[in-house]
C-alpha cells in the first residue's frame, strides 16, 4: 500500500499517462499525495485518468503532450507551474506505439528506428531540459521508465531494447551532471501487465501461463499497485541518496543487473 503522504504537496508530471504503466504510475503518485499532471496525446483517455484520480480524492490535471514535439513538452511543464506552482518530479514513460511489435532487423525500415528514437530518446531529452529549471530550484528528480530489454537485449524488439539501453546511459550520465545541483536521476525497469499484453493473452491461449512461468512471483506486475509504489519510493525522500540507478521491478524475472 502506498504511503498517502510520501509525496504530499509535490508536483509530478507523467508522460504517456493515459494507459498501461503510465496510468498506473499517475494513480500511485496521486495516492501518495502528489499533484499529478497527466500528459498524453489522447485527451479523452488522459481526462479519464484525471477523473479516476479525482474520484478517489486525489489531485490531477491534464496537459495534451506529444513528447516528440518540444513545444508540447514545454507547454506541459508550464501547465504544472500554472496549475500547481512548479514541478518536483518529471517522469518520462511514453514509448512508441510500435514498441510491442516484433521487429526483424534485417527487414526493418529505418523509419521505424526514427519513431522509437523520437518518442523515447528525444522525449527524454526534451523532458529533462524542459523540467531542469524547476528540478534545480526544488531539489527535484527525473525518472525514466526503462525495461529489462534495455539491460539484456531483446530478440524480438531490437529497437525497443536499443532505446531503453540508451535511456539507461542517459540516466547514469545525467545523474553525474545534475547530482551537484541536488537533482536525482533514476530509472525504473518494470515487468508489467499492459493493455497490449492483456490483448495478446486473450488471443493467444496459453501465452499467459507460458510467460508467467518464468517469473518467480508467477505474475506480471500491476502498474498501479506493484510498479507505482516503486516509482513513489524512487521519487520520494526515502530515496534521497539514490541517483544514477536502475531499479528492476520484475517479480524476480531479471536478476542479472
Amino acid at each position, binding site marked *: 500500500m502506498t504511503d498517502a503522504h510520501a509525496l504530499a504537496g509535490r508536483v509530478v508530471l507523467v508522460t504517456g499517462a493515459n494507459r498501461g504503466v503510465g496510468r498506473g504510475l499517475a494513480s500511485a503518485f496521486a495516492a501518495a499525495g502528489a499533484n499529478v499532471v497527466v500528459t498524453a496525446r489522447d485527451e479523452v483517455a488522459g481526462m479519464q485518468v484525471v477523473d479516476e484520480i479525482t474520484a478517489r480524492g486525489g489531485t490531477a490535471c491534464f496537459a495534451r503532450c506529444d513528447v516528440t514535439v518540444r513545444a508540447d513538452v514545454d507547454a506541459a511543464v508550464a501547465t504544472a507551474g500554472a496549475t500547481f506552482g512548479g514541478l518536483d518530479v518529471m517522469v518520462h514513460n511514453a514509448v512508441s506505439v510500435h514498441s510491442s511489435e516484433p521487429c526483424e532487423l534485417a527487414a526493418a525500415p529505418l523509419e521505424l528506428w526514427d519513431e522509437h*528514437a523520437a518518442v523515447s530518446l528525444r522525449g527524454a531529452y526534451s523532458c529533462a*531540459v524542459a523540467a531542469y529549471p524547476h528540478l534545480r530550484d526544488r531539489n527535484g528528480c527525473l525518472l525514466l521508465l526503462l525495461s529489462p530489454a534495455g539491460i539484456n537485449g531483446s530478440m524480438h*524488439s*531490437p529497437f525497443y531494447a*536499443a532505446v531503453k539501453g540508451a535511456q539507461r*546511459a542517459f540516466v*547514469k550520465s545525467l545523474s553525474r551532471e545534475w547530482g551537484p545541483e541536488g537533482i536525482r536521476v533514476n530509472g525504473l525497469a518494470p515487468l508489467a501487465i499492459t493493455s497490449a499484453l492483456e490483448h495478446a493473452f486473450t488471443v493467444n491461449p496459453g501465452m499467459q501461463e507460458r510467460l508467467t512461468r518464468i517469473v518467480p512471483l508467477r505474475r506480471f506486475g500491476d502498474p498501479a499497485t506493484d510498479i507505482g509504489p516503486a516509482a513513489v519510493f524512487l521519487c520520494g525522500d526515502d530515496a534521497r541518496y539514490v541517483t544514477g540507478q536502475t531499479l528492476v521491478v520484475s517479480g524476480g524475472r531479471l536478476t542479472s543487473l
Partner: protein
Amino acid sequence: MSRPSEVALVSDEDTQVGGAIAHALRAAGVDVRTEVDAAPDGLDLAVYSRVARAAFPARPLVTVDEQGWIDGAEQPVRDFVAWMKAVYQPLARRRGTVVLIAPTASQEGAAGLVPYTAAVEGQRLLAKSVARQWAERGITVLTVAPRLDAVVDVDAIGATDATRTDPSLGADSYEPDAVARVVLMLRDPSARVLTGTTVPVDGGALLAP
C-alpha cells in the same frame, strides 16, 4: 596465421581504434575491405568502429540544442542500424562475426557526455538484441569495450569524468593496439560461444559485472 581467404570489413579506418584493427588484421593476412559493396562473396568479420564525433565536445545536457541531441545521440544509432542491415547478407554467407566498438563510458555514465553515452549504449543494446536474433543464422555478434581514451583524445573533448576509474594495468593494456589484439582473438570460430557479450579492454578498470 590467417584462415584461407578470410575477408573482413572495418567501418572507419580513420579512427584510432579502427585504424589499429585494420592494420592488425592485414598483418595477420586478412583481406580487409572498407565498403560492404566490396565484399560480394561475403564477410567473415565486420567491425564497427565509427566514433560519434557530433557528440563532442563534452558539454552539459542543458546546453545541447535539439539538433545537437539528434546528431549526437540518435543519428549514431541510426547509422549503426543501417550498417548492420547492410552487413547482414554478407555475414550470413560466411556465418561471420560482428564486432561493435563501444567504450565503457556508456556502461558507467559520464558527465558532459549524455548524448554520446546514450548513443553508444543504444548501439550496444542493439548488438545484444541482434546477437539473439541472428544466432540461429550462424552470425556471432560481440561488443568490445575500450576505455574512452583509446577512442578519442579525452583531454581534447572538454570537461568529462569519463575516465575517472583507474585501470589496474598500465596504459599499454588499453591502447588501440590492445583493442586490436582482442578483436583478432575474437575472430576465432571458438569465440562463437561468446555471442552477445561485451568484452572490456580497459586495463582492468570497470571490472563489471
